């Protein structure tokens, strides 16, 4: 896990007067799923396209497998697979032909290629649709085909740029499970998304980007520690006649309390049995409620604290 697969140093990409990527540096290690998290327009895709040498970047350096990445670094490209945000397949070819075509750009041997294509079809579970044309597939199946086209040649390094956009929950789970299997089979994965749940679910390490800069990095747990909130309790009140926020703020470990409509939200900076103390207070005050929930902080909370806005703003 200590071998560096990607080394990005001081990467800058400017579009006329806009700095889309602003001097970012990070390393990606072998056999990890590396998450690049950030809202739309934060510079994730630009970073990926720069790493892949599709985009001319303004300054900085990019090394993959210890070598400088250039447009004609064919030996490096052989070990890289990319799944783009847009579905990149030919409508004129069937599912099988699409995977075979793209796999054929990497593997000359027909028998080996056939084996790889079948493996990719199995990995994303589209065996029943091999003779279908892309236009005959649902959005989720199309995304799975898109992934199969990018990984059929069994690359050592895989870039997935928002592969689950506009995908149904079943296909999303299928895709995420497939990504974990790829990592378990030895691939290093760079995963960009603006869905924090996905990052939490599959990524070993995460970099959070905003406005072209890295604002935080680490494991999901390390990032969550950046948030002041350790627990958040939400209570749906039967009626909101009485404002209890003042009394609640006096409780131990309470960082903040707010009432919006009939939803009371209480944030804690630590402590144990917080929910029991809150229930006691509500009972003492004679306040009835429908439900009460306790949540651990999410990456969205981290992002909110670091930038003052939601990830999906």
């Amino acid at each position, binding site marked *: 896990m200590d071998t560096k697969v990607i080394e990005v140093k001081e990467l800058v990409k400017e579009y006329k007067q806009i700095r889309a990527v602003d001097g970012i540096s990070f390393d990606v290690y072998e056999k990890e799923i590396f998450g690049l998290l950030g809202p739309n327009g934060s510079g994730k895709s630009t970073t990926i396209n720069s790493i892949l040498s*599709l985009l*001319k970047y303004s300054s900085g350096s990019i090394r993959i497998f210890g070598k400088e990445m250039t447009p004609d670094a064919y030996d490096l490209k052989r070990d890289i697979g990319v799944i783009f945000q847009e579905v990149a397949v030919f409508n004129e070819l069937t599912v099988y032909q699409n995977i075979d075509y793209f796999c054929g750009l990497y593997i000359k041997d027909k028998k080996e290629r056939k084996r790889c294509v079948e493996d990719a079809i199995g990995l994303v579970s589209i065996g029943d649709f091999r003779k279908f044309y892309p236009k005959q597939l649902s959005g989720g199946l199309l995304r799975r085909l898109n992934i199969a086209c990018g990984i059929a040649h069994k690359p050592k390094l895989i870039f997935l740029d928002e592969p689950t956009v506009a995908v149904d929950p079943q296909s999303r789970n299928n895709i995420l499970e497939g990504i974990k299997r790829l990592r378990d089979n030895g691939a290093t994965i760079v995963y960009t998304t603006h869905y924090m749940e996905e990052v939490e679910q599959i990524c070993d390490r995460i970099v959070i980007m905003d406005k072209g800069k890295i604002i935080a990095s680490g494991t999901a747990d390390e990032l969550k520690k950046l948030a002041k909130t350790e627990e958040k309790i939400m209570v749906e009140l039967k009626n909101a006649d009485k404002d209890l926020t003042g009394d609640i703020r006096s409780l131990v470990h309470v960082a903040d309390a707010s009432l919006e409509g009939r939803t009371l939200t209480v944030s804690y900076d630590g402590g144990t049995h917080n929910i029991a103390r809150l229930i006691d207070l509500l009972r003492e005050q004679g306040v009835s409620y429908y439900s009460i929930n306790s949540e651990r902080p999410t990456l969205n909370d981290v992002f909110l604290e670091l930038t003052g806005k939601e990830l999906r703003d």
Partner: protein
Amino acid sequence: MFIHNYLYSLRLMLGNKQLVFWTLAFPLIMAMLFNMAFSNIEKSEKLDPIDIAVVDDSSFRSNMIYTETLETLGKGDDRIFNITYTDAGKAEKMLRDGEITGFVRFEDNEPRITVRSNGINETIMCSVFDEIGSESKLIMNVGMTEIMSLVKSGKTDIDYQSLFKEEAEKIMGDDTGLTDTSPKNMSFVMIEYYSLIAMACMYSGLLSMTLMNYRLANISPVGRRSTISPSKRLSQISGSLTASFTVQLFGLAMLYLLLIFVVRADFGTKLPEIILLSLLGSLAGLTLGVAVAVLVKINENAKLTVLLSVVMAGCFFAGMMGITMKNIIDKNAPFINRINPVAMITDGLYALYYYDSGERYLINVISLAVFSAVMMLISVSGLRRQRYDSL
């Protein structure tokens, strides 16, 4: 890798219904439409002789120019008139009975035409007699001038009839008329077929442009996927272009088979030269498509519009929508058709068919080869920049 790209490029083209229609089916449909629309035009240009009557009296017989001219116009397979020589009463009856378009009677040495109604035949009849009248006056003037000069020179034994006949032959005879010295007569339909072949050649640009778009990262997502693969660009592009050329050859073969065996177009004895010109024309079309794909930095649909506009403008300047335009361009702005591949193709075909000129044909063949080389060089220089400013 080349074979892999070649085979899949064929699949991509043949699987694209729009592409198949415009490059393979459309020229065939146009050929059939041209055949249906124009093949009868030339046949119908031959007019049926017009039935007329001439009042055959002393006044008519004394007018040598008219008697001889009408005799000529009323005989042979290509005669203009079926002439009935009769008296005035019968001529009027024939006109009333609808047997003739009109009749002519001579009074004071001038023809008086009587027709039943207005129409094309009546107009033609009047025009022909007007023309004879003009010619007659010319002959009379020239003849009188000749007689005056003979009289002045002291000659007294003048054979007036022979003199006028001699002058008439000079003015109206074959010696002073236009003669056709070309190997074959200009056929309007053949010009259209040549333009169609040129258009079919240039439409090959659609094939190469579509495939090139699949290789360019800044145009399509599949282009991005192809660009990040270890497959070298040269291998991908050469496979695509060879496949485009294969499909184009198939399309051209279909077009020629249709034109020769179904439409019965007459390509003479120079089919190998015509095929060579078509192959070079197709190469020019293919390289033009590549150049538009590489150099024009807009989306796929806009590129298609640009390419079709260039081809259609080329067809227009080369005379596809009317041969007059080609003549106007050749006369006023010859540079346009010297760089216009459509004009190079059509002009090469004209050179073979109408002018029998090897030199002119060769110039067009070389021009097409140079055009293709220039397009390819420009495209390659554009392709060398493999990283993009934006995607």
